[in-house]
């Protein structure tokens, strides 16, 4: 079973890596978006899925990553790689500084505090001249979608390997312990503050890299699109739809939902958003533990799987 799964993952990776060789421009562009969303969903998975802290601040990390690249390239004429470094630095420092007070909050309060952070950032950045205020910044274009595709895929592999390593390490077990019961974890000797802040920073690192790549690819950024809270909601939806707290679930969720929303918005322009919302509602009610749990247990239980989920969570 283990070998079979490994083989499937490798085969999927080969197919994904070969897309630029045979895919159309539209497919490659769709792929870049979907892969970057998958990276973001994985980044959220570290703090939300494994540690159990429903962060709405990951779009801030993404935004800082985009602005790191944009400021370095558009304002200072530095190479892309240095921009990525700057973005990561900004995001990680932000995560470390704000993580300490904000991660003391639990549950809904943490969610709302990070939501407020995300709301504040767009307004602050739109008042900074270096960041182009509310007009935004234009980056030098690089018309090489295939390169961006491979960058995005490489980043996805990196974040997934990190999460895989995490899931089998002392650090990862610590995070899971915090998710299940933070007080018990602390009593067992887990340095909860340190673990949470590190998880937040790790999450920030990958989100910022995804933002940086997206900024260079799209060549234009402004505060509204860089610090977009709906992007954060998308990450959460994709991670939870696929299976938060699993190694591959968020990727599955991101790719499936990206495809669904792409098809919908081209076929049923009027009701695409409506249908997307309905899919979310249905998914949360019928398969609250995501696609990975569904694939594991649907065969054994059949339709009773959905009934049992409802029974487990209803009043």
């Amino acid at each position, binding site marked *: 079973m283990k070998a079979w799964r490994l083989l499937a993952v490798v085969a999927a990776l080969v197919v994904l890596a070969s897309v630029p060789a045979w895919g159309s421009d539209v497919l490659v562009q769709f792929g870049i978006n979907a892969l970057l969303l998958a990276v973001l969903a994985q980044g959220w998975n570290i703090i939300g899925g494994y540690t159990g802290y429903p962060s709405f601040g990951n779009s801030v990390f993404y935004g800082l990553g985009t602005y790191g690249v944009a400021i370095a390239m558009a304002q200072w004429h530095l190479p892309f790689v240095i921009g990525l470094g700057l973005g990561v630095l900004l995001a990680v420092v932000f995560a470390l500084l704000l993580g300490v007070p904000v991660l003391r909050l639990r549950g809904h309060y943490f*969610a709302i505090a990070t*939501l407020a952070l995300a709301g504040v950032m767009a307004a602050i950045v739109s008042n900074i001249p270096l960041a182009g205020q509310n007009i935004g910044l234009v980056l030098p274009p690089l018309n090489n979608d295939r390169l961006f595709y491979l960058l995005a895929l490489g980043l996805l592999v990196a974040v997934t390997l990190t999460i895989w390593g995490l899931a089998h390490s002392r650090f990862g077990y610590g995070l899971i312990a915090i998710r299940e019961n933070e007080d018990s974890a602390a009593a067992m000797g887990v340095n909860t503050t340190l673990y949470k802040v590190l998880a937040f920073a790790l999450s920030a690192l990958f989100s910022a890299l995804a933002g940086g790549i997206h900024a260079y690819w799209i060549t234009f950024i402004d505060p509204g699109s860089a610090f977009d809270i709906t992007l954060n909601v998308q990450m959460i939806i994709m991670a*939870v739809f696929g299976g938060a707290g699993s190694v591959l679930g968020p990727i599955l969720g991101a790719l499936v939902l990206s495809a669904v929303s792409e098809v919908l918005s081209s076929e049923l322009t009027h*009701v695409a*958003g409506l249908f997307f919302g*309905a899919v979310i509602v249905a998914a949360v009610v019928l398969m*609250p533990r995501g696609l990975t749990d569904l694939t594991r247990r649907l065969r054994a239980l059949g339709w009773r799987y959905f009934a049992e989920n*409802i029974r487990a*969570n209803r009043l």
Partner: protein
Amino acid sequence: MELLAQIVVNGILLGGLYAVMALGLALVWGVLNIVNLAHGSFIMLGAYCSWHLFHYLHVDPFLGLPLTAAVLFVFGYAVQRGVLNLIVRAPMFNTLLLTFGLDVVLADLAQLAFTADFRAINPGYAGSQWQIGPLVVPLVKLGAFAAAVVLTLAVWLFLLHTRLGRAIRATAQNLVAAHLYGVEPRHLYAMTFGIGMALAGAAGGLYGTVSQINPYIGASLTLKSFAIAIIGGLENPLGVLVGGLILGVIEALTTLYVGPTYADVASFGILLAVLIVRPTGLLGRTA
């Protein structure tokens, strides 16, 4: 000095309205432990309900409030009974996600039904204002403020002194114990959510008289409601009223002295500061 006084008056008038917006959110959050990301969309639906009553049936927006609230109550009761009750015991971000999905559905349905055009409820007395010394008080805003204060006090008295209000408070404290004393949780949850959404609907009707509405106003109203509920705490409607007034005045002052782009920074900054320094709300304990 006169300008400052005028700004504070404007802030207070707006703050009363903010308070009613947040009241339903705080009630649902405090009692059902559901953070309703669709709250703003319910406010939006209330605003459209009031607009339709005014535009087609020429019902005065203030007199139409009970009807709007009743419509939203029924809708809220049905949503809780049919959907939200199914996931009440699920992990927190599942409830967040579900209400977000609901928000998307409501906003898109509203766009299909009412188009994305901006609407406003403009009764004949919309332009009237009172001159009190150097201060100008627009009649509509004063009416919205007065209605907001009355509603807040009514909710407070209702929770304290009625049988249903006591059942709601008992459930907020201990669901199992309340159940043992004869509270039927599915019905009570739906009643609570219905009342919360009736308040959201009334807030929407008032909002429509002081501002323009479209199907997508919900998200920012949800965020504001959060800020107020956090500042005021979840336990006491009077706390929410104070929270709304604080936010209204701070937004007005920031807009004047720092700049309109900083109004949201100020309100969310305060929200953050309150959460970090005093996570139980400025007044009293949160649930």
